[in-house]
């Protein structure tokens, strides 16, 4: 189809689609007047039942914990997918490595990063990690948790790359490290599920002591799951960024070398 006929066909369809959607939305309760029975019930019982003050965390990691396990594995599968898709180029990367080593190219260690950027980046790593850990650890009490905290932690890993410590990091093989984080994160979540089975309860039952509401050490398995998720998310995002970055850096280096 030509560009215009495709667009016109789309507009034709969108006319019907739009009318349908708007008609459907009219059937919703007015904005701000929602009284859903699920949410109302949880609002009444959740704090007492889970000892988590953040209801969203209670829903995500306890009541609907099995869903979140599925979501964890979506992330897991997507990250493995990125690794597969960029895999072919890893062979090229290996070739580039050999070439570089043969020529003993000094520029490899710090490609195109000025000292000012490096100092600033290095200085930011510590606070970023701390902030990430804080967000993760307080997920059951205040907004945050393993998902957002994990991304923040991955940002710290990115800072390491950007400041040029990338090649140093490569020596400890970030791929296998982040892959390990992936499986520990996803597997750890599932392990918490088996904890319930071992205690003779249902899968993913919150069998640990719930502690005092409002304390950091409370809400039982919610805290544990939060940690597992943060490992998974941080590992996943680092791996993705590394896969993309590796190529960019190496190709750039090859050109210079």
């Amino acid at each position: 189809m030509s560009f215009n006929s495709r667009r016109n066909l789309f507009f034709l369809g969108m006319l019907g689609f739009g009318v349908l959607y708007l008609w459907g939305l009219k059937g919703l309760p007015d904005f701000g007047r929602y009284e859903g029975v699920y949410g109302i019930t949880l609002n009444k019982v959740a704090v007492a039942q889970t000892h988590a003050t953040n209801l969203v965390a209670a829903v995500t990691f306890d009541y609907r914990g099995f869903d979140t396990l599925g979501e964890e594995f979506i992330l897991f599968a997507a990250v493995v997918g990125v690794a597969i898709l960029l895999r072919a180029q890893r062979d090229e990367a290996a070739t580039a490595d050999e070439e570089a080593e043969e020529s003993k190219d000094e520029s490899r260690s710090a490609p195109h990063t000025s000292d000012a950027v490096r100092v600033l980046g290095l200085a930011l790593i510590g606070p970023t990690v701390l902030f990430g850990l804080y967000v993760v650890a307080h997920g059951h009490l205040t907004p945050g948790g393993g998902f957002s905290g994990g991304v923040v932690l991955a940002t710290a890993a990115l800072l390491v790359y950007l400041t040029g410590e990338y090649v140093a990091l490569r020596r400890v093989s970030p791929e296998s490290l982040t892959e390990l984080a992936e499986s520990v994160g996803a597997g750890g979540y599932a392990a918490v599920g088996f904890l319930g089975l071992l205690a003779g309860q249902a899968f993913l039952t919150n069998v640990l002591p719930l502690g005092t509401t409002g304390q950091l050490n409370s809400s039982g398995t919610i805290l544990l799951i939060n940690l597992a998720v943060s490992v998974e998310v941080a590992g996943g995002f680092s791996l993705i960024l590394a896969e993309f970055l590796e190529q960019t850096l190496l190709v750039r280096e090859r050109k210079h070398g």
Partner: protein
Amino acid sequence: MRVLLPLSVAVPLVAAALLLAAPQSWVRRGFDAFAVAAAGSVMVICSVLLAGSTREPMVYWFGGWLPEGGVALGLVLVAEPIALALATLAAFLVTASLVYSWHFFDTTGNLFHVLMLVFLGAMIGFCLTGDFFSLFVFFELMSVAAFSLAGYKVEEEGSLQGALNFAVINSIGAFLVLSGIALVYGRTGALNLAQIGESLAGAPVDGLVITAFVFLIAGYFVKAAVVPFHFWLPDTYAAAPTPVCVLFAGIFNVLGLYAIARTYWTMFDGVLGAELVNLRTIMVGAGAVTAILGALMCWPQRHIKRLLGFSTVSHVGMFLIGLGLFSPVAFAGTIVYLMTDGLVRGSLFLCAGILLHRLRSVDELGCDGLGRSIPFTGILFLLGGLGLAGLPPFGTFVGRALIGEEAARLGFPWVTYLMVAVSVLTAAPVLRAGARVFWGFGPGADYNHRSEAEGDEEEPETTEAHETTPPLMWVTAAALLGVSLVAGLVPDLPVRLVPAAELFLDRGAYADLVLRGVTPHKLPLPPGAPLLEGAVTGVIAALAAVVAAAIGLWHAKLPASIRDSITRSLGPAFGGVRALHSGHVGDYVAWLTVGVAVLGGLLAATLG
């Protein structure tokens, strides 16, 4: 027993996580053996659950959150026979694919196995869950694993483009489903399927109900590849790795249809049930269009995997007809049909994989006669073609006959003829390709075929041309065919399935089971109906397919006047339909939008 329910989903997922952590220094066989063992044990778990559920359906509440006063707080898995039959099929196909790929990919590494296991866990979760949002989560999980598997052959341009089209269209489908879920949640304040069903029942049909239903149906139509949401399928199947194609053709598409049945029977039956007659017409119509279009598109294909892709589209259309009749008998027939047919199509894909392994190509014309050296694969391929046509005792004839009879009873007498014609039309090109490739029938390769489209772009999946076929490859292909054949020999198979189908279609019994823990009454087996007529039809269809294949091979020998009139009458329409399959993702999305609008218009006009 009950504890096997969460394990059926958790085991493959945990196995995937463990496999990823396994050191890369493991030998390839280690990954293979571990993955096969994991998938095999999941198959055992599912079969045990299946056997148990036919005696007594079960539910499993995660985290111990039982429903209080009809309000579900947590998430639930529901073990009932139909869902478990599909889960068992999924586990069987994954195990078979992993066994098959034992010698198949000359690659190292574990990522392929990891994704296959995630895919398996997602399919089982999708079948068993009783929660609306979990259904979406496992839909997404399945899709994401599938995108990566479809693009596995990164050195091939077609594989990447196919995967990209697939990913974009399926993601839009998923967002449609999520929007539908949001609308339903806004109305009912519930996410548990049974609870939503009770909340919606008896309410008047309004815009929200229709829109939510259309969005959900359309989203699952994308997955099932119903026209005009089907464009991604041939692109993806043509280039995806063969073991993955087996899963796509055998189970992935039909799970989209399964989700539609779930959605309708647990949630919307109470509100849309009064308009069932109109809904039935729409569904049967959509199925018929899909079946015909897919069958016609099979003919010009010379790329065998793409041909099998279009035959999948066509057969999905027939399953949709069975499903859209909204009756227990037709539903039982549909389940039999889609399971046995999926096995046959899976086996055909495996044979195509052997071709790729031995001849480095799956181009019908390019391989003309080259398959003479592998006659056994050729026999399997031809048997598969006859299975597609519904030759007894392949189970396919049972399902088709049952759907046809029930359709006639419900006022669609033409459905039987349509289904026979469509299975002949999809089987004949397969037989034609088989006869040409494995025995060199028909004019030579230099003969000017009407199709100039994609020929041998496909790269082989193993590194060098092989002199022999590893036994595991054809054994798996034969096993899939064999199971389909045995299914047709089980006496009264459909009769045994009818009570399970009735349970599936009983919204009240489902809600009692999930929300109140009431085990449904065991339904008596209905009297067995002789399927003699269906068997005779099956034989006739197979013969017709052979004749049609012969015409396909030697149509140059037909009198010129007949050829000209065929070209004149069908040529332009054919060319037009083919041109729509442009490989352009923008086109596909435009068609998707139109499809939603048309579905919405039809439902609004008849139900609103």
